[in-house]
């Protein structure tokens, strides 16, 4: 309820700027990201939605009729099922909410197959009961094949219903079940024997002062009870934080989970306000981490200067150049004079060693991390090079130089003298669900298309290579350690 007092104002502005959304990720309550013919789609409150070719750059143009609040979309078989609330939760006609579903063969409005089926009602609130049927989401239970939807807002309870995955209709005889209070824009997900209910808590639609945040409870049964980390049922207001304000954005709401590969997941949401985009409500994509069975948003990856340490052994990725000793006055530990003042030892500087490095390509290997210039890598986003779901491609260069990490046509690695922007020098850096990183070249020389298979990989403790992503193996994972 609270949200919609202000929503009216916010969305009158949005409507006026419909054209200005092109090329910009402006959205509220984005549905779970859906993929269709190589493009990504998300639908928002009020109608319409965003499209992205690469998952990084988003623009308006997705089409969803029916208006209303907070839709969700899911591919089932070869069709897309869209679920939405036809109303706005308290605005214009009280709490008589309706949840509808409709199908489409494609999400691409330009496709000749693009045609929504007639929307059918699957749930409603009568206006006086403790529920307002808006903000629906979908879960196709991978263990049973059964299709569930939760819906509701602050006006009473969050409810669970079952749908028929073949028709999108309500399962005959299915009774609504209350599963949470005091949240809205919920989402249901399943992982590893647990069902998770993610709710949006706080207040939206107040720009940079919106307190929206996403909380979670979990249950062994899809029908609940959904309980938080200290044992509180979400029906009692319980919930563990998944994402809150931080990094110049605030008010995350309307969770969606996208599994990219085993162990690599992304969460979608909107931020009520992006401080860097004039405080507008924008699409947010973040790595989704799993800690002790709880989902948690990872940080946006901005790059920086790091040691790249293998998860296999903890050795650092380095240029295959001569190790250069740091000369200093040694004081053997048996002869330490405690009265003598200590003198810090300076770091080895790039200038101290770079002159001895070869001019051409330099091989890359792994070895003991010693904080040396040939082991320090600066990772910088290259936004003009495009991106992937959740982030831009990066260049990875030896700190203080333009010497760039590159993939070779024999699936090995090299460090070229200067970054040229070539696709084999661009890297997709993603945080895996356990907090480690997957580092993947955009393209492999001599191979067609964008690489989504081969990653930086420990062939041996000292030998990095490129090999297929395998979340089960520490050979495929890396840690980024600030110097």
């Amino acid at each position, binding site marked *: 309820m*609270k949200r919609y007092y202000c929503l009216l104002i916010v969305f009158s502005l949005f409507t006026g700027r419909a054209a200005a959304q092109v090329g910009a990720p402006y959205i509220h309550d984005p549905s779970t990201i859906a993929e269709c013919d190589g493009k990504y789609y998300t639908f928002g409150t009020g109608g319409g939605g965003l499209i992205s070719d690469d998952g990084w750059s988003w623009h308006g143009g997705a089409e969803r009729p029916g208006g209303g609040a907070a839709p969700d979309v899911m591919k089932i078989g070869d069709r897309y099922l869209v679920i939405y609330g036809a*109303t706005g939760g308290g605005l*214009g006609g*009280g709490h008589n909410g309706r949840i509808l579903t409709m199908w489409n063969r494609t999400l691409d409005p330009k496709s000749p197959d693009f045609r929504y089926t007639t929307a059918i009602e699957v749930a409603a609130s009568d206006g006086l009961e403790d529920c307002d049927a808006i903000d629906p989401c979908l879960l196709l239970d991978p263990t049973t094949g059964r299709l569930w939807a939760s819906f509701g807002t602050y006006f009473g309870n969050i409810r669970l219903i079952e749908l028929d995955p073949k028709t999108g209709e309500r399962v005959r005889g299915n009774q609504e079940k209350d599963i949470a209070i*005091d949240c809205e824009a919920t989402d249901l997900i399943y992982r590893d024997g647990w069902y998770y209910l993610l709710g949006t808590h706080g207040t939206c639609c*107040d720009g940079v002062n919106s307190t929206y945040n996403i909380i979670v409870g979990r249950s062994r049964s899809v029908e609940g009870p959904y309980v938080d980390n200290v044992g509180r049922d979400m029906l009692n207001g*319980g*919930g563990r934080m998944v994402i809150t304000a931080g990094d110049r954005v605030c008010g995350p709401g309307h969770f969606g989970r996208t599994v990219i590969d085993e162990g690599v997941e992304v969460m979608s949401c909107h931020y009520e306000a992006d401080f860097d985009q004039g405080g507008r409500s924008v699409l947010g994509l973040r790595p989704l981490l799993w800690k002790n069975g709880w989902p948690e948003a990872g940080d946006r990856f901005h790059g920086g200067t790091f040691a790249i340490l293998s998860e296999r052994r903890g050795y650092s990725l380095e240029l295959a150049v001569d190790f250069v000793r740091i000369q200093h006055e040694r004081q053997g530990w048996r002869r330490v004079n405690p009265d003598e003042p200590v003198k810090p030892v300076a770091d080895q500087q790039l200038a101290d060693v770079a002159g001895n490095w070869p001019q051409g390509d330099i091989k890359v290997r792994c070895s003991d991390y010693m904080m040396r210039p040939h082991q320090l890598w600066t990772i910088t986003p290259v936004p003009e090079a495009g991106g992937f779901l959740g982030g831009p491609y990066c260049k990875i260069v030896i700190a203080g130089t333009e010497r760039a990490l590159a993939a070779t046509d024999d699936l090995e690695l090299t460090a070229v003298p200067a970054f040229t922007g070539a696709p084999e020098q661009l890297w997709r850096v993603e945080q895996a669900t356990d907090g480690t990183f997957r580092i993947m070249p955009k393209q492999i020389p001599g191979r067609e298309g964008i690489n989504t298979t081969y990653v930086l990989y420990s062939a041996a403790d000292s030998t990095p290579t490129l090999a297929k992503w395998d979340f089960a193996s520490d050979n495929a994972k890396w840690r980024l350690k600030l110097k």
Partner: protein
Amino acid sequence: MMKRYCLLLIFSSLFISRATAQNPIIRDQFTADPTARVFNNKVYLFPSHDILVPEGARKDWFCMADYHVFSSENLTEWTDHGVIVSQEDVPWGNPTGYSMWAPDCVEKGGKYYFYFPNGPKGGRGFAIGVATADLPEGPYRLEEKPIVGVSGIDPCVLVDNDGQAYIYWSGMGIRGAKLKDNMKELDGELQEVKMQRREGAPEMPPMKVGGQQMEGLPDGFKEGPYVFHRGDWYYLTFPWVRQEGGTETLAYAMSHSPLGPWDFKGIIMAEHANRCWTNHHSLLEYRGQWYLFYHHNDFSPRDDKRRSARIEKIGFNTDGTIQEVKPTLRGVGILPATSRVEVDRYSDASNGVTYAYNDTANTFLGWHATLPGKGSWLRFADVDFSAITDGYVIAKVKAEGNTEVIINAKGDKKKGKEIARLKVAVSGAQGPFRRSTRGQWLTLTAPLTNVPNGVADVEVLCGDSALSVDWLQFKNRQQYFTPVDKKATAAQPDDRGFIRRWRLMEPQKQDIRSNTIFTDSWLRETFAKELAKLPKQKAKWYSMESPTYNMKLFHFAEKYGSQAYGNLFWCETVVNCAEEISDIRLAAGSNGASMWWLNGEEVLLLEGDRRMVVDDGVSKRLTLKKGRNTLRGAVINGPGLSDMCIRFIDEQGKPVKGYDIEN
């Protein structure tokens, strides 16, 4: 046989359909030729099961592949017990004949005998099979052969008072015969009958036919005999085409003997007005009332071979003759107000009121009624309001212009009395959520201003402009509080330690548009000001008990406040301790901000934009003194669902419970 049993079990899963006191009675599939029987004080319905014609079968013909059985105890709610016999399972039947026409089922000696026509394997015409079961729902065991000497359709079995059973069927006119005690064979000689040879067809061997022609029936096409015994009379009832080129009526004849001769009496039901060609029926007495079960093509307007069962009340004259019945939409049964009242099945209506399918592509979605304008009305008889106390109505309506739905209830002989009025606003101010709702189905609610006593007719009256109504439904408001009697004994905290009994002051209206103003200093200033006013407040206090752990203040405001949103709530309770309890904390959750005082001392402030979360904040460690402790709270909220939950917890976070709650 084992395999067949398993199949039957799989198909026997139950489907409870919702209450439908209206015609047709089964609303998710076709149900023709309804034979209804009373077994064990329940009505069992054995219809034939029309289906859409599958690929390869004759397109313009009847098509039935199996039988379901349904049961009901009130003629309004029907349980589908699933498939009992399927054409693939009949040992002698054509597995793709789709000829499972009108059946019957009777009980004798604790066993249930199901009779059904079917096309024989490799043969022509129809034979009649038997299947037996220990329960009306099955599972049914199929006989290996059809009944010898019966060639035809539409079996009907009468078990007379003396235990003698008779079978009637349609084939070369209407025939009847005694059944042997085993219920599976005809009693008596079979005649050899030479088949009439169709022109050009080869000579057929003579057929053995049992029983006798029923004498005394009128000329014209007859089928579907249904024979029953009432008082001194046997009744032979049957569909009958009385005019050349006409369609079927339901007609009857009477006799003092089960096999006639019969005295033709006339019509039970005239031809269907829409020229649905067939009709087929049964009659039964249930709880002192006689009913006629019959069919009509309600869900298949363009194809009268997909039919649906209906029921009407039927009466007898003192001389035993049957009173003619007119088909109705309303049907029979008293409908609970809490189920959907499909007003498109109205009992009667003013001129110009019409009904139409909700979706012509899926007729099973039912109908809606359209009232053309001011002054038009419809009436739906016999809705039971006895479960409604503090009620509201839900209506599914659509309109092209702003109008109203006025709902009256009409008891015996009384004039209709308005019980609710719903505004249908379809045009006006618009926005991203507020679009024009012209011509769209809307679910609207309104509280009942009067609650009818017991059973009443519901009248729907049209406001200023035309209106379509799909259904109405009545519900009770949820009970959020129980007023506490002054003499009530003390309460205790609940299992989890929550205090559910509070004195609540009538909500104090506050002009709060957003909860973001709830800063510490604003709250302190506001609460201090309001606290100072408290001794002089003349506002009313309510002593209330909540059925849940939390006090749903929003609903308290809905009922006792001047507005639902934007309120300050004062809450008080007395905690009476037999002994001092120390080192405990007050734990609170509130929607929105709140402040709490124990024995006049501030112990907790929940500031900012809050939702109610159990144990959201706690006081510092404190002591409840021996005897009475006053706990006071103020909850303030703008646009939100005001709520609070309060308990005391110990060092480990466990609830503290050993005290009385008095107020």
